[in-house]
């Protein structure tokens, strides 16, 4: 789990904070619009994405609340490539018809590291699907490692800490993370 350290330990300049937030909003818009090829272009080649299983434990037990060896998704660059390709197909029923997705990001907390930036943000991802009034909100905290390259920020690593211990939406596809 990603505990924040006090701001004085690694605060970044208002300009950096703003640039990173702008990047996250841009990226979220790509996900919301299913512009997954463009989104994929923002990933480094050693990129990994994870969404660990969350269990319901007593405070103080040795068993971690977020699993350290069990995930709903744990994929490197190659598998994410396959997923992006797959979601474009007619037979990918999970997103055909596509969900209407809306990311709302907040609490963006940036720490400078040797490799770049460690970015924590909270998010509510709204999902509406099909010809129905039903909808889901997937609440999560996300931790992202960003590198600063000549082409701008690139995403090197991401963990999505879901707030549910029982997943309550049909399926977890890439645009929802």
């Amino acid at each position, binding site marked *: 789990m990603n505990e924040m350290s006090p701001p004085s330990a690694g605060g970044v300049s208002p300009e950096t904070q703003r640039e990173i937030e702008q990047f996250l909003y841009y990226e979220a818009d790509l996900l919301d619009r299913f512009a997954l090829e463009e989104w994929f272009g923002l990933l480094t080649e050693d990129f990994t994405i994870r*969404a660990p*299983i969350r*269990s*319901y*434990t*007593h405070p103080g*037990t040795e*068993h971690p609340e977020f*699993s350290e*060896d*069990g*995930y*709903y*998704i*744990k*994929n490197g660059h*190659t*598998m994410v*490539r*396959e*997923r992006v*390709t*797959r979601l474009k*197909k*007619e*037979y*990918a*029923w*999970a997103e055909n018809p596509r969900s209407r997705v809306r990311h709302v990001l907040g609490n963006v907390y940036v720490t400078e590291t040797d490799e770049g930036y460690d970015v924590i943000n909270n998010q509510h991802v709204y999902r509406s699907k099909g010809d129905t009034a039903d909808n889901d909100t997937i609440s999560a905290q996300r931790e992202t490692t960003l590198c600063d390259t000549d082409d701008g920020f690139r995403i090197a690593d991401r963990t999505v800490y879901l707030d549910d*211990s*029982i*997943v*309550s*939406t*049909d*399926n*977890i*596809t890439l645009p929802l993370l």
Partner: protein
Amino acid sequence: MAKSLSHAERLIEQTGTDLENGEFPLKILNDESIYHEELRRIFTRSWNYLGHTSEFEEPGDYVRRHIGEDPYILTLDETGELHAFLDSCQHRGAQFCTADKGNTSHFRCPYHGWTYKNNGDLQGMPHMGESYQALDTDDVSLEEAYLDTYKGLIFGRIVDEGPSLEESLGDLTYYLDVMFDITEEGMTVVTDAHRWESDHDWKTSADNFAGDNYHVLTTHQAGFEAENIDRGPWEELPPMEERKGKYNHLAVAEDDEGNYAGSLSLMVSYDNDTLMGYPEKLRDHFNPELSEEQIELFSQSLYYFGTVFPNTTIIHAIQAGGWGGPWACIRKWQPRGPGETEVISWWLVPKELEDDEEFMERSYRGWESLSPGGAFESDDLSIWNGISDSSKSVTLETRETSGNMQQGMDGMSDGLEEPEDPMFGPAEVTEYGGYYDERHSRGLLRAWYRQMSKGRPQPNGDESDE
């Protein structure tokens, strides 16, 4: 109540009649009164999967599990015996289990402090000396389910009625041995389970995994078209459009009384080197108690997907298209209301391989492929939700509409031959079965009909027709 019961009875009877012609009333996939009776007539007296012995290492280890919709706690007591208690204090019925797993010697009710040992006996309560002087604590213990285990798989039932677990698994034990007892040390559950809620009826998914390969071509086509990943032993087989269901077999197993116990779809390569994509070293650990035929069957396998009646699904497979594995999985289709299910999916591996990182990575990906985050399952879920939505419709009820499961009946299907090879075991096995034969669906629903038409169990445990 009387009115809704007769509605349920009518649907149950329609199921019996429809099944003679390979059909079934679509309405039973989302109907309040049917669901109400399923909880009482099926989940009380069937063997419900509760957990695996590898989840219990120390005395006091416990997990929360359900029978039907009832909340139970599965515990290992101080003497090493397993119990399953209803999470309901004998004082005022409060729940006292507040985590989904943990370790404790006692459970203390948060309401008035009644305390129970992890074997279910009442230990005591606050002010016992002042307020419960004449109470015999031996008379108070938690409601306990009847448990039985087979090869590490723990099952429980509320009513101790009908055949033992092993009798009720019947011919299915041959395949359970192959799937969950292939090595000397047995299988072990790796991590926390995947859990998700889905708007589909438990019968829909139980039926899907009971042997439905027919859906794979349509539902999962996007998954098979992966381009850049190694397909493992699948590379050795002709592509799907040429195979046309060859190599796939449907096995329908009976219990000791000749009723449907469960069924599975199994894929073999007819090549002993396939070994489901496991590393060769697995052979060094083969369980010497298994027969030569069982070892041969496992060696030639690519996958097993099956269902144990009523709502346990069993998997041991390497995923097609390069999406990971081999992995083993036990899944429970936990009823959560008419047309609603919570899915719980546990990942298992042979204990001997749990420290092999390269293998564990591949095995994890197979398990992930059939999860809400997976490239395969996510497509099923969208479709199953639609079944649930339409099945509650008044149209289906008013017109008594029947769905179809006639594949393999007289004059319907070609090529369904029973293989001669004894490795296929005691069940009724047909080649091409998973694609062109729906005996598994008819068997599962016949087992459902049998239990539903028995009526509810009596409060004292005797059977009743009422």
